[in-house]
């Protein structure tokens, strides 16, 4: 009896316990950091130091297995994306692409040293790409045939087929030194050797890591000399740390960002981390995928229905009611990127949406508020990944609006990732894509990728016209030349992948990434973030400054 009572109380108090439990662990984390600080010379300039409330640091700092693909302050890449979302040279001095788009030749700087003192040569670049291709973990380098160092400052890539987005692949890969690289690389602080503006001086796994400015860095010396990055996986812990003044900047979320903290403000970073609905574009004819999953949906295969869902939903309303105002309307998978077509932007137009539905024969005949056709109701289940409360909120808001505005009955359903894969080829789902490479557009819409279990194109969208544009884009010689083709694939005046055209996706919002930032700390110009909130933030750590 007593035990049972106790058990009951335990569940009730679980909440309270977790909070105290977590702040306890954060204490141990920060006290370590504080000891660290105290150990440093007492009069050290606070203005050159920053403490960051971060999420998990990951298992490895090895770029060859995917570390830092959104940019990191530890490694330098041949080229990088700057705060204006444009590519600029980093290690590269210049590069040329052959007429057929197959041979890329890079000239690199000759004054770059790794943090272990050794010079960075073209052979290190070649080694990095070879190793990454071999490991085949995160980077897709299947199109890379070979990579050779012609001399110390020239490196040549040979591709098996033209791939204009290869430049973005290059921008994602940090260069590692061939001489010290081993299987242990990136797993301990002394096994992290890069050439970026910062070096890793200490790493207490799961607790913190410390970055210090790299004096040998070939670029401008950063103003922030030292960054203490505290691992605080729970957002409550980061909130408490921010409230206690233990951190200068902390990751937060739309749920907690409304909390007022004295001396801090909330900064939003734009992202292409979008949330929208995939709408199966083919009818259900009883076909199944190789794995036996049902294909097609008889309601969403009608382009009018898909467009109605795009036009008939007020994006601003989703943002205010479901996301506390912390998001931006989304109109494509690449809003704001150089290859984005501004014609993708649509205005909410409920009358138009209703007209589209009526044109397709969806009329509310029995007066129950839901449209029907041939006795079938205009209704479907909308899946989201169970446990993701933001996606749930977006889905609920869409469902409410669809019913109110258009007589469209959407049932929101949380589904585990495994079950999602079984159902996504025949049912709509809330999805998110965010990438800073146009390769995503290719994967999302090229017919060669339709209906794979990789989540890119579960709606089975195929279009010869789109394929032609995407192929033309991929075959371009320079990335600038390709922009036009990417844009045409989205909307060429008649059709396209955007919501004006075939609308295989109804895009609704781009999540903004939110941070509590201490007043006076300038976090530079953040490029449009891809997926993930943590590493993209400190990719430009070298540009951060404290106001005097």
């Amino acid at each position, binding site marked *: 009896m007593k035990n049972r009572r106790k058990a009951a109380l335990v*569940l009730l108090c679980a909440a309270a316990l977790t*909070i105290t439990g977590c702040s306890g662990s954060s204490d141990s984390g920060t006290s370590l950091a504080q000891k660290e600080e105290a150990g440093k010379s007492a009069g050290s300039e606070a203005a050159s130091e920053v403490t960051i409330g971060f999420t998990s640091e990951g298992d490895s700092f090895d770029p060859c297995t995917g570390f830092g693909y959104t940019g990191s302050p530890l490694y330098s890449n041949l080229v990088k994306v700057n705060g204006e979302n444009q590519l600029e040279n980093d290690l590269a001095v210049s590069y040329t692409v052959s007429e057929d788009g197959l041979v890329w030749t890079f000239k690199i700087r000759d004054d770059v040293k790794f943090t272990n003192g050794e010079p960075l040569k073209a052979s290190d670049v070649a080694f990095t790409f070879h190793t990454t291709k071999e490991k085949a973990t995160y980077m897709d380098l299947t199109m890379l045939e070979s990579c050779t160092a012609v001399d110390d400052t020239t490196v040549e890539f040979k591709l098996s087929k033209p791939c204009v987005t290869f430049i973005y692949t290059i921008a994602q890969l940090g260069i590692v030194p061939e001489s010290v690289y081993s299987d242990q690389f990136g797993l301990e602080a002394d096994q992290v050797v890069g050439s970026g503006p910062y070096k890793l001086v200490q790493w207490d796994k799961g607790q913190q890591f410390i970055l210090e400015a790299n004096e040998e860095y070939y670029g401008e010396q950063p103003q922030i000399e030292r960054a203490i990055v505290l691992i605080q996986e729970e957002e409550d812990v980061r909130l408490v740390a921010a409230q206690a003044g233990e951190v200068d900047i902390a990751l937060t979320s739309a749920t907690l960002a409304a909390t007022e903290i004295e001396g801090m403000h909330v900064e939003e970073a734009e992202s292409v981390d979008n949330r929208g609905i995939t709408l199966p574009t083919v009818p259900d004819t009883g076909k199944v995928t190789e794995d036996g999953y049902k294909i097609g949906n008889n309601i969403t295969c009608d382009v009018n229905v898909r467009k109605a869902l795009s036009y008939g939903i007020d994006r601003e309303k989703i943002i205010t009611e479901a996301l506390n105002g912390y998001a931006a309307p989304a109109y494509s998978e690449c809003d704001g990127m150089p290859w984005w077509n501004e014609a993708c932007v649509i205005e909410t137009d409920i009358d138009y949406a209703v007209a589209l539905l009526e044109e397709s024969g969806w009329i509310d005949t029995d007066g129950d508020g839901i449209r029907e056709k041939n006795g079938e109701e205009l209704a479907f289940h909308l899946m989201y990944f169970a446990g993701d409360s933001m996606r749930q909120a977006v889905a609920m808001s869409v*469902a409410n609006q669809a019913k109110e505005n258009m007589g469209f009955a959407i049932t929101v359903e949380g589904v585990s990732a495994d079950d999602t894969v079984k159902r996504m080829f025949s049912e709509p789902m809330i999805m998110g894509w965010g990438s800073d490479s146009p390769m995503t557009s290719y994967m999302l819409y090229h017919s060669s990728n339709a209906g794979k279990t990789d989540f890119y194109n579960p709606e089975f969208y195929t279009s010869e016209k789109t394929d032609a544009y995407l192929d033309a884009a991929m075959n371009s010689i320079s990335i600038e030349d390709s922009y036009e083709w990417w844009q045409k694939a989205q909307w060429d005046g008649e059709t396209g992948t955007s919501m004006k055209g075939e609308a295989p996706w109804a895009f609704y919002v781009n999540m903004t990434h939110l941070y509590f930032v201490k007043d006076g700390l300038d976090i530079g110009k953040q490029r449009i973030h891809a997926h993930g909130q943590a590493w993209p933030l400190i990719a430009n750590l070298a540009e951060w400054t404290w106001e005097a």
Partner: protein
Amino acid sequence: MNLNRRTKMIVFVGVIFAVLAAVYLAGLFISDDFIAADFSQKGLKPSWEHPFGTDMLGRDMLARTMKGLSVSIIVGTVASTVSAVIALIVGVAAASGVSWLDHFVNWMIDLVMGIPHTVLLILISFACGKGLKGVLIGVAITHWTGLARIIRSEVLQIRSQQYIEVSRKLGHSSRWITVHHILPHMVPQFLIGLILMFPHAIMHESSLTFLGFGLPPEQPAIGIILSESMQYLSAGMWWLAFFPGLMLVIIVLLFDRLGENLKKIMDPYSAHE
């Protein structure tokens, strides 16, 4: 005086039973419209209109809690009934006098009790496909051990009574004896064990769901409500966890009282206290 107290007890049991039945029916008859998202009402503190407040999707927490408790009571009923039946069968079988069966049953009980309960629950519920089905199976087939032990020893005790021996000498078969002499004796043990298993089953359903191995997120279940509320606690929304948690504790305690009181009425050893 004795009778008086007994009557009081029966009334008390009746009241508890009525309360539980009312909670169950209330949850059953609350329309789904009450727990539909309404963003104009999101994140409201408890008020007269929404006594338990609303969550971040604007759903009324009182309605959600009642529906959740209703689900809990169903899970509790089904799981503990199945468990108690298993316990009865196993307990009687073990005490039937076949020695290898007795050994086997004891070994099974030790095995099930030896594995940490929550871990076993998670494993079974996961293997049975999660969701309501997984939780039901998981809870049902892990709770019978304690009661099975009690029933086994009880049966053994009865079997050694003289009248059983007499009955046997009179030529009644073992089956006849089991049905006519032993099973009737088991009724109080069975019923009380069943009801006292209830709180266990409900708590375990909630904790499984809380940990994410139980019911799906749309199902209004207390475990879901509690785990959802965790992310809003530091935003100051205490009512999301407090009221549903409190209600769960109250329901669990009510079942417990019900069982204890029934025991006093029915159990021959304590009925005359």
